[in-house]
């Protein structure tokens, strides 16, 4: 049974700036080390639109893992090291709802007692965008679909949905692709069970959640799952891969990729992830 | 120091940590924006739809004919004993002979609840009360029990008959308690009632007649003569 989402209406409609000349790309630590192709494809998509992408080399992490684990001092220390990376007034684009949410809403909290850093953090927060949101609303992404007809299903991360308020963005982007049918899965608004350290601390519950999520995604019959968050992506695809492994299946029963990669592939771009 | 003083002291000691004065809630703005400007008949229709959805029966009748209707409904339901408050204006209009002709014994409330508890729980089939008013938004009756119409009349008997004047239906609960200045003086017990007693405590399956009345039957009187 699919449950309609009653959104809280907490996110006032964001006023988007005109398309800028340049952006800062904040790749996130997870993408940097584990899913770099998602970041690279997002960069390619932006550059293809004529936007200069600046990748500050000193970027590490927004501090979210420590923050949400109850280590605010450690989060502050790491976040503080990132505050000087965005000196120009360019938008900061983040290919992850949870890291975007950290910068947009929580940085100002962790620097509440430090006026100088608070001001800096707040200024960055106001020009920070989740990648898909930026691509749709600021870039105005609209490229013809060049792929074969296919059906995909979409998972939206809880941070994108509830912190960034961008749960409709993925749908709208996919709707621009003429040959792509979006299959909605049951309990779509429900968490995939990742939750960062939650997946390590409470593996039983995390497993139950991701197992249900994988089953719901597979039940759509879609050929793959697309998501704009790499935490969810790894959680879902690695769970599906384990199910395949346990069942002795060679072909992946639920392949998945980042929305950036999917969009790039479908619109004639050269995706980076073919190792 | 008593527990009271310790609790209050703790709360007071810690109060200054909240920096700003918290604004007074703006109830009027919320309700005014949703004012429907509807007629009495529209309110009645909304009330009716609401309370019927909660499994109450509603009968609309002319003001002069509700006693007859009540007697007839009692007969239909096989009520052999109807408990009511004889001292209320409505109670005074009930004619024992008319009810007896239909097989219903009228029983005026007499004495304290302790005196009639056994009968109340085991012998009385139905209770009759007036409603003070109603709420259109939710399909809700407003009851203000009184010495003339005790609380248990609307609670213990398996059937509850209620008399409601259509002119006393308010749009919302908020409107009712504002218009009638409830805060200026409440009875010992005031009640909002929206249907017969029910529960969904077993496997989310709705069942009526949990602990209170199994049936709620509303007689709405109107001067416009909008009988069914």
């Amino acid at each position, binding site marked *: 049974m699919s449950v309609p989402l009653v959104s809280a209406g907490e996110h006032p409609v964001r006023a988007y700036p005109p398309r800028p000349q340049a952006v800062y790309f904040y790749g996130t630590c997870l993408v940097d080390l584990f899913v770099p192709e998602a970041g690279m494809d997002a960069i390619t998509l932006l550059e293809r639109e004529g936007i200069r992408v600046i990748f500050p080399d000193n970027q590490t992490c927004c501090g979210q893992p420590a923050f949400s684990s109850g280590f605010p001092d450690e989060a502050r220390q790491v976040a503080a090291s990132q505050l000087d990376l965005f000196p120009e007034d360019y938008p900061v684009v983040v290919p992850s709802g949870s890291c975007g949410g950290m910068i947009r809403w929580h940085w100002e909290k962790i620097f509440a007692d430090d006026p100088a850093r608070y001001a800096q953090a707040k200024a960055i927060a106001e020009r920070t965008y989740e990648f898909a949101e930026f691509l749709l609303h600021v870039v105005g992404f609209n490229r013809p679909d060049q792929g074969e007809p296919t059906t995909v299903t979409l998972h939206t991360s809880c941070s994108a949905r509830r912190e960034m308020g961008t749960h409709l963005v993925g749908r709208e982007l996919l709707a621009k692709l003429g040959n792509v049918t979006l299959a909605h899965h049951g309990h779509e608004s429900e968490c995939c069970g990742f939750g960062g350290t939650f997946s390590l601390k409470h593996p039983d519950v995390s497993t139950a959640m991701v197992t249900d999520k994988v089953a719901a995604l597979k039940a759509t019959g879609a050929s793959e799952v697309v998501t704009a968050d790499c935490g969810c992506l790894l959680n879902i695809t690695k769970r599906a891969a384990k199910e395949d492994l346990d069942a002795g299946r060679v072909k992946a029963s639920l392949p998945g990729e980042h929305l950036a990669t999917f969009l790039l592939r479908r619109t004639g771009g050269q995706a980076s992830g073919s190792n | 120091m008593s*527990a009271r003083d310790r609790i209050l002291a703790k709360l007071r000691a810690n109060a200054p940590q909240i920096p700003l004065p918290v604004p007074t809630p703006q109830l009027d703005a919320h309700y005014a924006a949703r004012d429907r400007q509807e007629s009495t008949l529209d309110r009645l229709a909304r009330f009716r739809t609401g309370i019927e959805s909660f499994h109450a029966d509603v009968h609309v009748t002319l003001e002069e004919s509700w006693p007859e209707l009540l007697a007839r409904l009692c007969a239909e339901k096989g009520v052999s004993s109807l408990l009511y408050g004889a001292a209320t204006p409505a109670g005074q209009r009930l004619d024992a002979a008319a009810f007896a002709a239909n097989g219903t014994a009228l029983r005026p409330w007499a004495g304290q609840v302790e005196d009639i508890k056994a009968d109340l729980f085991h012998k009385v089939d139905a209770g009759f009360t007036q409603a003070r008013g109603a709420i259109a938004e939710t399909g809700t009756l407003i009851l203000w029990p009184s010495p003339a119409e005790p609380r248990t009349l609307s609670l213990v008997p398996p059937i509850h008959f209620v008399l409601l004047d259509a002119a006393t239906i308010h749009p919302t609960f908020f409107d009712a308690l504002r218009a009638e200045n409830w805060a200026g003086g409440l009875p010992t017990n005031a009640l909002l009632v929206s249907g017969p007693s029910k529960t969904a405590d*077993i*496997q989310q399956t709705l069942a009526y007649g949990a602990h209170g009345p199994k049936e709620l039957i509303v007689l709405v009187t109107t001067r416009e003569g909008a009988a069914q």
Partner: protein
Amino acid sequence: MNAPTPHTAHATRGKPIAFVSAEALRERVHEAINDDHLRSSFRGAMDFLMAKRAAQFPDESELVSLRSLSEAIRQYSLSKLPDLLEQLEANLTRNGVHVHWAETPDEANAIMLDIARRHQAKLIVKGKSMVSEEIEFNHAMEAAGIGALESDMGEYIVQLAGEKPSHIIMPAIHKTKEQIARLFAEKVPGVDYTDNVDALIQIGRQVLREKFEQAEIGLSGVNFAVAETGTLCLVENEGNGRMCTTVPKVHIAITGIEKVVEKLEHVAPLYSILTRSATGQAVSTYFNLISGPRKADEKDGPQEVHLVLLDNGRSQAYADEQLRKTLQCIRCGACMNHCPVYTRIGGHAYGTTYPGPIGKIVSPHMMGLEQTHLLPTLSTLCGACGEVCPVKIPIPELLVRLRGEAQSAPHPHPAMVGQGAGYRPLVSFVWRLWARIYAQPGAYRAFTWLASRFRALTPSRQSGWTVARTPLKPAPKRLRDMVRERV
């Protein structure tokens, strides 16, 4: 159906809430998660409740406005809490209600035991009250030889089974009708097996009607206490709350100190958003406003009414601007209904009176962090609870705060009882080390370069991750490498 005969025997309730150790919590969660039957019944029930709630808010703008108003009322009330409690006490006293204050569960039970003894009560019949669960009221009364009988159908079923509620609004939500049918056949004298829900409810009705008639004391909770009029408001569907507060000669109400509002009109929006959020009902069957005992000319109602105001850790939450938001709660249970963790494990696994998201933020104040420090970790911070909360309690934010309080190094003046109870030197060390590396871009680059270069050495067993997933492995090239190499 045979007519049940009176019975007084009631199984002792489930184990008192004594200690929720980390091991016990994990064990309970493990058991619950492997109970397919439990999982499918909770999933079905929660889906049902979520859909019912959603249907109550067809107009998003009304929900937004009502939620903001409800939050404003609760915050306003809390901002004046000590004054409102005094005003409430003065007005209730003027109305003839006896007001008692208790800092601890023991004090509350002692007050009520004293009232019961004064009236030589043998039986106390109870309307639904989570605060009475919180203080283990039934145990305390039974230990003193006084019967305490639950009369809410769900609570009655749970008490008969010797269990505890698994949901604050629907206590027996974990049981099927077949289980209840077997329970009644076994425990209620003269009852044969029937799994017809109407028949089961009628059995409960008959048994409990006799008790309403006999009991000397009725106990209830309070949904809202109105300071300006001295009024106690109760929300219910069954009529047992009215029975408990009307028929016995003594009525005792018990509530947490946070439930007070200033004005009578403040209850109108709160009542509306409560029933719609809780069970997806536009309104409950009964809304009962009690402003005093039976007056001289009145014919029924209790001759004595008492109110017990319980602190039990609430003043600790009150002391902190952020934690105070916990006290905005109106106990609707919507956070449970929408919680993916609660849906998987049910209410009992938490081991606390209040389960689910609200339980995770309120229990640490009631029980101390020594016993509850793991609870705030039992969440993905998905935010579904905060999204549906009718009074906008930022539950995820409070969970994060409590994680911090639990893991902080022991502090001489802790903001919370048990602060630092979850402190583990090794874990803290790992996070400090992590911060040192991640706060120095050079160190971070070196670390990720090594991780990527030596990816073949990545362990194949990765703690909880690989329980159900294939291992994570660093990519051969980091994003920064790809960026550097791009044409």
